[in-house]
Every structure is written in structure tokens, then in C-alpha cells.
């Protein structure tokens, strides 16, 4: 563990709980906020399910070996993997493109790495090979020493014997990376959650300010305070998964029809629709007070959040996916025309979500220079539309300006998607 986080400690209860959660990777639900929660209840259910499955398969035994290998129709070098055997059928050869036909001869699903036994860099990860299934997987390897590493779903990993590839193939090879594990990610997640918690008191004060402005009937000030509070909330984007119903109460997307009249809409965008739609203070008071309560409720819920570690790797990416989809199109706007300000806040939020991941990625040789450069470029561009607090509405921009924003944000999110893949929690050795 290279993470030098100074406060987060990894206790084993956390690891157990989160490993269970990580086994079922958080689904990327449809692009709508809030995301489905991985709640304690869900984790409990998953754990029970896991036990049930394991019980059915007690007394591990290899399947009868009727044929030397699995399906002959699957292309590739036949390699047997499972709970007892890992890598039978292959003992090395010539460097370059390799295709293996992994046959799982055990009664458990198996995940198989091709790794460098010295560096533990993984070049190929064949996941979820079902019992009895044969799966082809390809990788292009340079000369060197490798081995298969088999991880059955419910028993200890099995390392295969090392094998060598020789040759002078000079073509491109598949890059390897030391897998990021749940254990690596827990401190990062905790650090991130702590940061979110630290922001909430300020957010609460800001939403209270909006409610107070409305109570005084000062709707001009209420607008500017609304923007301050909303932008602050938008920097916390990485926490969407954890916010659940709170997220809905605070920042649900405005509906296509008149959001000011939508009885099901609450939170920032409801208030936005009313404030910018010319509603009297009396009509805004209720929603403004409700927002304060919703944020208070969120603070309570965030004291002990339950999130999968998968979340932390996806966040930085998904925040900007949301920005591209909802803000860049103006879909998220309920009258204030501050979508570009929201994107600016989202970029901040994306950087905050990346921060605790940096040591993990740095230890693997990824400095995120490209990502940082494009986030910085995106911020500069977005902020060029901030005229002393008055933001140009995205929908009022001309074609060239829209194109530049689309291209810049889209390039940024392409790069961020790699972070999500690299920090996808994988099994530890």
C-alpha cells in the first residue's frame, strides 16, 4: 500500500464489508441522479447470496474430465484453470500475440490473470469464467516470464507455474499494471468521504442563507446565494451514489414540463425555477426551507455512509459524463442559465474525486498529466464565460463556441474513463 493517507485507517471489518460489496460491482445505472445506492441492506443481501451459492458448491471437486479440454470450437491455446489447476496446457513459447482458451474445469466461477510473477503486473484479466465454460482471451506479450494466476470465486487463489516467452517481436504489446485492490481503495474512499462531510456544514449554511433571503423578501440576493449554494453542492458530485433519496430531495433534474409547477420536483432546481420565473417569495419559502432540511438530513446520513469502493474510481469520470449530458445540453437548466458555472463546479468535483486516487495511480506509473491538462483546459474555457458572476447561458452560445466546449469536455471525459478502468477494484493476491 503506497497510500500515505494520514488519517484513514483500514479496519478489517471495513475490508470484509467492502469486499462483499465490490464483488458485485456497482452498476452504472441509467444517467439519472441520484444513483442507486449500494446500501447496507443490499450488501447484506449480497453477502447472504454469496453464502448460499458457496454452500451449494461445498466439497469442491473438479468436473469429470471427459475431454482433455473444454470446447474445441473456442479458438486459442487450450489452458485449464480452476480451483486445483491453473495453467495446465501452456508452458511458454514465442512472444507476440497470444490467444488462450481458458477452460474452467472446476465447479466455481474463476477469474484468471496473466501476470509477471516478479512485478505482479497483470496483462490479461479473464473474469467470471463460469464452471465448465471455455473462454478465449487475447493478449500481446513481449519476451519475459509470466504465469497464470487463478482466483476461484469462493476459494483461495492458485498460482500457476511460471513460463517464458522468447523472441524479438518488436510490435506493440499489451501494457501491464499492478491491479488496484479494494484494500488500496478503502483509504481513498474514506478520505473522499471525509472531504465530502467537511463540505456539508458550509453547504447547510449556504442553503439556510437562501431561505433567509427569501424570508426577507430579498429575491435578488436569494438568486446569487442560490448560485453559491448550488455550485458548492455540484462540487460534491462524486457522492451521488451515497446521497440516494437525499440527492433527489436536493438536486433532482428539472422535468421537461414547467419545473416551477412540477409537484414532484424539489430542491435546487425547483427553487431555481421559482426564483428565475418571477414567483413571489411566499411560494419559494416552502421549497427553500425544505432544501435546508434535506441538506441537514444528508449530513446525518453521511456520518456513516456505505459505499462500494468501485464508486471512488468511477466518480471523477461520471461527474463529467453527467456534465456533458445534462449541463452541456442545457437540460439541467431551470431558468438561471448557469449551466457553465455548474460544469466549472463539476470539474472541481472531478479533481476532488481524483485526489485520493493519485498516490495509487502514481505508484503504478500513471501521473494523470493528460487528464490534468484537459481538466485545466476545460476549466479555462468554461471560466471564460464567467463575467464577474454573470455566466453566459450555454444555450445562447454560437455554434463554434458550443463545438469547442463539446470537444474539450468530451476529450476530458475520454481520458477520465481510463482512470475508472485502472481503479476498478480487482482481487488481491
Amino acid at each position: 500500500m503506497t497510500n500515505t493517507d494520514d488519517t484513514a485507517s483500514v479496519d478489517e471489518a471495513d475490508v470484509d464489508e467492502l469486499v462483499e460489496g465490490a464483488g458485485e460491482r456497482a452498476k452504472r445505472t441509467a444517467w439519472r441522479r441520484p444513483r442507486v445506492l449500494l446500501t447496507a441492506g443490499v450488501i447484506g443481501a449480497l453477502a447472504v447470496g454469496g453464502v448460499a451459492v458457496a454452500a451449494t458448491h461445498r466439497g469442491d471437486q473438479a468436473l469429470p474430465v471427459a475431454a482433455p479440454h473444454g470446447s474445441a470450437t473456442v479458438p486459442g491455446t487450450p489452458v485449464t484453470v480452476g480451483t486445483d489447476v491453473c495453467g495446465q496446457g501452456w508452458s511458454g513459447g514465442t512472444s507476440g500475440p497470444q490467444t488462450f482458451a481458458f477452460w474452467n474445469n472446476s465447479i466455481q466461477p474463476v477469474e484468471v490473470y496473466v501476470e509477471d510473477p516478479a512485478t505482479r503486473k497483470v496483462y490479461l484479466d479473464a473474469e467470471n469464467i463460469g464452471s465448465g465454460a471455455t473462454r478465449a482471451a487475447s493478449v500481446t506479450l513481449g519476451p519475459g516470464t509470466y504465469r497464470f494466476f487463478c482466483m476461484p470465486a469462493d476459494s483461495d487463489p492458485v498460482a500457476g507455474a511460471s513460463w517464458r516467452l522468447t523472441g524479438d517481436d518488436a510490435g506493440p504489446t499489451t501494457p501491464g499494471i499492478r491491479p488496484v485492490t479494494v484494500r488500496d481503495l478503502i483509504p481513498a474512499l474514506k478520505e473522499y468521504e471525509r472531504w465530502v462531510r467537511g463540505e456539508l456544514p458550509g453547504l447547510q449554511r449556504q442553503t439556510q442563507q437562501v431561505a433567509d433571503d427569501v424570508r426577507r423578501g430579498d429575491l435578488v440576493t436569494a438568486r446569487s446565494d442560490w448560485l453559491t449554494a448550488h455550485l458548492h453542492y455540484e462540487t460534491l458530485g462524486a457522492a451521488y451514489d451515497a446521497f440516494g433519496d437525499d440527492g433527489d430531495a436536493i438536486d433532482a433534474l428539472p422535468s421537461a414540463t414547467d419545473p416551477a409547477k412540477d409537484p414532484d420536483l424539489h430542491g435546487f432546481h425547483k427553487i431555481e425555477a421559482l426564483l428565475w420565473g418571477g414567483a413571489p417569495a411566499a411560494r419559494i419559502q416552502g421549497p427553500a426551507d425544505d432544501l435546508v432540511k434535506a441538506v441537514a438530513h444528508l449530513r446525518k446520513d453521511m456520518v456513516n455512509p456505505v459505499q462500494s469502493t468501485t464508486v471512488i474510481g468511477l466518480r471523477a469520470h461520471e461527474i463529467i459524463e453527467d456534465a456533458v449530458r445534462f449541463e452541456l445540453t442545457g437540460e439541467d437548466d431551470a431558468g438561471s442559465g448557469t449551466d457553465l458555472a455548474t460544469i466549472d463546479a463539476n470539474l472541481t468535483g472531478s479533481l476532488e474525486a481524483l485526489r485520493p486516487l493519485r498516490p495509487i495511480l502514481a505508484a503504478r506509473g500513471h501521473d494523470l498529466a493528460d487528464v490534468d491538462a484537459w481538466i485545466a483546459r476545460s476549466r479555462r474555457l468554461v471560466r471564460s464565460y464567467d463575467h464577474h458572476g454573470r455566466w453566459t447561458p450555454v444555450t445562447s452560445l454560437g455554434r463554434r463556441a458550443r463545438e469547442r466546449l463539446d470537444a474539450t469536455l468530451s476529450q476530458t471525459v475520454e481520458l477520465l474513463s481510463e482512470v475508472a478502468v485502472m481503479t476498478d477494484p480487482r482481487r488481491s493476491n
Partner: protein
Amino acid sequence: MAGECPVTGRFTRRGLFGGAVGAAAAAPVGALVAGRAFADAPSSSPSAAAGESKPTDSYPFEGVHQAGILTPMQRAAAYVSFDVTAANRRELQDALQELTSVARLLTRGGTPPDEGLTGTTWSNGVLGPKIPADGLTVTASVGASLFDGRFGLAKAKPARLRAMEAFPNDDLDPARCHGDLLLQIGAHNTDTVLSALRLLTRRTRGAFAVRWRQDGFSSPPRPSGTPRNLLGFKDGTANPAVDDAALMDRLVWTRAGGDEPAWVAGGSYHVVRVIRMFVEFWDRVSLLEQENMFGRSRDTGAPLTGTDEFDEPDYALDPTGDAIKMDAHIRLANPRTPDTDDQRFLRRSFNYDAGTDMNGNLDMGLIFTAFNQDLERQFVTVQKRLVDEPLVDYISPVGGGYFFALPGVRSADDWLGRGMFA
């Protein structure tokens, strides 16, 4: 619609499309053999191509000229116009190199690069784990706007390149016109076109922003000869023979010298006009009137002075337009006189189908495509003759632009557009 509307090269005359069964499979065979011979080596003889028995579905990416120009039309196509959002000359060069490398890989086909666990998969899986070439061509062309001050390219502008003007019968929508860069992507199947489009745009996301897009298709011969457009007429019958290298040098490939910069050699002025056809209205017009507007038989494609599709229109024996009206499309477009001979150009148009308009009328038509050695001498001159032809009541040009198809990528370390930066 300039020129006689579109089509394939004259391969059809050799019957390579003839007897097509299940058009999707049939077109590639003849098309590809010819493509190998012509797209990359225009001087090679057609008989050599015809003698090649083994069909292939991959057109060479490298050559003096780009593929997708003389290449027989594939069944599916996408025209995508981009504005360049690269911040400077260097970024534009990088993006063009990336575009080249992805296009080279996809047109050759094979196993996509492997990112291992360090990124999402390079490919999108649409074509399966191994990418088939499937007759893919990616033709890159540049618009006049690329040569403004942004990239220091002002002096490199092809002399005749400019923003497409609105002709008298046009109804151009600015949102569907022009662009800094046009990609004309063709393949035997739609999934191949769309997969390529996704991969090409993904690798150049920060540099190229889509401006407009129109997908198209070409029809199988019905029942033989040149494929038909959506007005029901064979389209492209009178195209110059793409296997006549000398003719292509005279009509299609732009030359350096005079007011043209050196780098344009081997390129071609690429005209794209998205032309809506009012098919409901058209279907309410009598066959006689339809045929008089074109000057050809709808059934056979023969000129009204002749019998078979490839008979030459005989204007000498029809001087007053009794058979082929004086204002018929083919007569205006190509009077077949010595002084209009070098105004001919190569047409390579696809049909398009884009749903319905707000009144429920079908939005379909033609992506008129023309390759010219000299934009003014050829397309523009012909188009001016077509102003107010009777056909204009049934069609409406709504988009497109003038572009310049870049010269070919000559070698493994060459890239699209490199000459512009010299």
C-alpha cells in the same frame, strides 16, 4: 442535382454487378477487385483487375490518391462534417496523424490494439473481436474554412476551394453546410461504417467536433445496370470510366502548378450536396413527365433517343428536343459537345433516408457527390446550366459543401494532409 445524377463507376458495364444475388454479397466482389486495381494504382489495366480471381474486401489505404473516390460505391456510407477545435497547428497535425492511423488500421482490418487493464477497450465490439475491413474506405477532405488564420494554412489553400454558394434553386440550411473537415466513410455494411465513425471520432475527440452528418446507402442494380436513385431513375449511367487513367487525370485529379499549391497534386475537389427529393409529389407525376424531365426511360435508363442504358444520347438527330427535351436534365448537364467535354466529372452519390419532416412527408433524397479536377470548370459550370431545370420543383438542395479531397497517404509514415503543412 448537377450532372446526371450519380453513380457507380462503369464497372456495371462489365457486368460485375450483373446477376447480383443478395446484393450485399454481390457488390463487394466485383467492386473490390476493381478497387484494388484502381484505387491504389490508377494506371494499371482493367484487364489485370478483371483477371484477379480472388475477391478481397480490403481496399489499400495507401496510394497516390485516397480510396473512396474511384472505388466502386459500397452499400453504406456516412458523410460527417467537422469543425476543427484543435487549439493550434500542432494539435491539428496530431489529430490528422491519429485519424490516419485509425483509418489505416480499420481499412486493413485485423485485431484491434489491446489496452489491457489500463483503459477501456480500443474497439467498440460492434464488428466482433476481430475487425473485418469489409470494404471500408475513409476519405478525408478539407473545407475552405480550415485555411483561415487559425492554423497558419492560409497560403496552402487549394486555389478554387471556397464555401459553397447557394444556387438559385437551393434552400441551404447553414446548420447542414460547410465544415473544416469532411469524412466520407463507406463500407459494404452499415455496422462497419458506424463502428469506424465511432472509432475515428473517439480518437480525435478534442480536435474535431461534428458539424453535420448525413448517412447514405447505395441500392443494388434493379434489375441490372446502374443503381437507381429514390426517384426511380438509374443514376450515374454517363459517368466517365474510372478505369481510364488518362481520363481520370483529366477530369478527377487536381494538378499542382499555376495558382494551385504543390501539395494538391493527386487530390480532388469534392462537392457534396444533400438534396431532398419530394417523393410524394414525384409519385403523383406521370411517367411521361418524369421521363421528359430526365431525358431517359425510367425502366431501362436508356436515353429517349436510344434503346439501351448505355446508348449515347443522340442530340444531332434530335436538334429541337422532340425526344430528349431541350431542358431535360441529361441534355443540360452534359450536352456532349467538344467544348463541354472537360466539364464532366465523377459522380459518386448515395441515396439517403432520414425519417419524416414535421408534416409527415418522407425526408429522403440524394447525397450528391462529385469529384472534380477543377471545381469551377466542372461542377460549378454544369450546375449553372441546370438552374431552373424542370426537375427543380421536385428536389431541394438543403446542405453540403465544397471540400478538397486530400492527396493519398503515400507510405507508412505519411499521413493525411501532411502536404498542407509543408
